[in-house]
């Protein structure tokens, strides 16, 4: 277990292990997303109240919860980087920040465009919305801090510290729900648990697009991390050999 853990911590092992694995993950992801989105956006029946507007759900919900989970993952990576000085963990954290922030932005934008027809306003200072906005700010802070440093080591350590400090905000944001009323709906889990209310035509595509999005998150993170590995290890012998091979093949 520990051995595996340390092995995964080595950039080279990470790179080589993912080389075979990523294309399959990417294909599966593409399939899931295609089914989920085409079905959800194209064929699922319109909602009795919101008509076709509700279709935004197939993008909004996964990106919104994705943004939250990605932060959690980033924090775990930051902790691993601080405690065991695992470089790959930092590279993953860096990728997490980028796509977490993008997901957060997408959730905000889709939510806002959804809010106009349903609630009558693009934006309201409601707990969940506010929490999402703050999360976005924290992501941006982490990225801004990282890019402000010249030295790679200092940048990654500083970003890790800020990421961990930012974790404190998460439960507080959660309790802020007591503060603003929640206009945003509570978690419905789309009726997956007690299939009583939401019919399968609506939640099955959501499940597809949800898993597709999870796959997408991992594909992007892994690809980004692989890039980062090549960049940071560009002088390591194995990378040089890899480059030689690639250019030889080309």
């Amino acid at each position, binding site marked *: 277990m520990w051995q595996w853990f340390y092995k995964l911590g080595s950039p080279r092992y990470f790179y080589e292990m993912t080389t075979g694995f990523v294309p399959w993950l990417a294909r599966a992801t593409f399939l899931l997303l295609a089914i989920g989105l085409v079905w959800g956006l194209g064929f699922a029946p319109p909602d009795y109240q919101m008509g076709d507007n*509700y279709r935004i759900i197939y993008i909004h919900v996964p990106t919104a919860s994705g943004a939250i989970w990605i932060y959690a993952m980033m924090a775990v990576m930051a902790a691993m980087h601080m405690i065991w000085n695992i470089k790959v963990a930092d590279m993953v954290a860096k990728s997490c920040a980028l796509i977490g922030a993008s997901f957060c932005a997408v959730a905000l934008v889709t939510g806002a465009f959804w809010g106009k027809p349903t609630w009558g306003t693009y934006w309201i200072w409601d707990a969940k919305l506010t929490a999402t906005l703050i999360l976005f700010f924290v992501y941006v802070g982490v990225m801004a801090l990282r890019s402000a440093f010249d030295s790679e080591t200092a940048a990654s350590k500083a970003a890790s510290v800020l990421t961990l400090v930012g974790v404190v905000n998460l439960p507080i944001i959660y309790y802020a729900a*007591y*503060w603003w009323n929640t*206009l945003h709906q509570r978690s419905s889990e789309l*009726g997956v648990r007690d299939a009583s209310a*939401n019919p399968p035509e609506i939640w099955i595509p959501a499940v597809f697009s949800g898993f597709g999005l999870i796959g997408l998150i991992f594909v992007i993170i892994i690809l980004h991390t692989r890039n980062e590995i090549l960049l940071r290890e560009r002088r390591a012998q194995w990378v040089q050999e890899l480059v030689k091979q690639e250019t030889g093949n080309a």
Partner: protein
Amino acid sequence: MTPARKQKLMIVGSIVLGSAVAVALMLYAFNQGLNVFFTPTEIAEGKVGADQNIRIGGMVKMGSLVKQGAGTTITFIATDTNEDIPVAYTGVLPDLFREGQGVVAEGRIDANGVFQANSILAKHDENYMSAEVKAALDAAAERKAAGGTP
């Protein structure tokens, strides 16, 4: 004990102590109740005095919606099935606002006990259903209400 050890112990000690105190304070806070968002029941219990700027949440009671005059002023009854409160509002309504649907209103309770809203937001519930399903369900509910067995 070496000085280094002693230092570490002091630091760990203050962190543990701090966490304990913080947890205690938070528990106390949550016991106090932090709500500034009220249900009709809480209002009926007299938790809110007149002329406090608050938010209320509930459902628009079936059959209570009345449009007045040119149609920009409305009154309706907000309910949490337990208690009711009359609400008055002037302004543009969101699409989702309709009877039987969740609503959040912000405003004050006037001297007559009417909630004078200065903003109204509609709330979607946690369920999504297609128009046909909704119709079928409604029909079933009606039949049930009529006392028939399916």
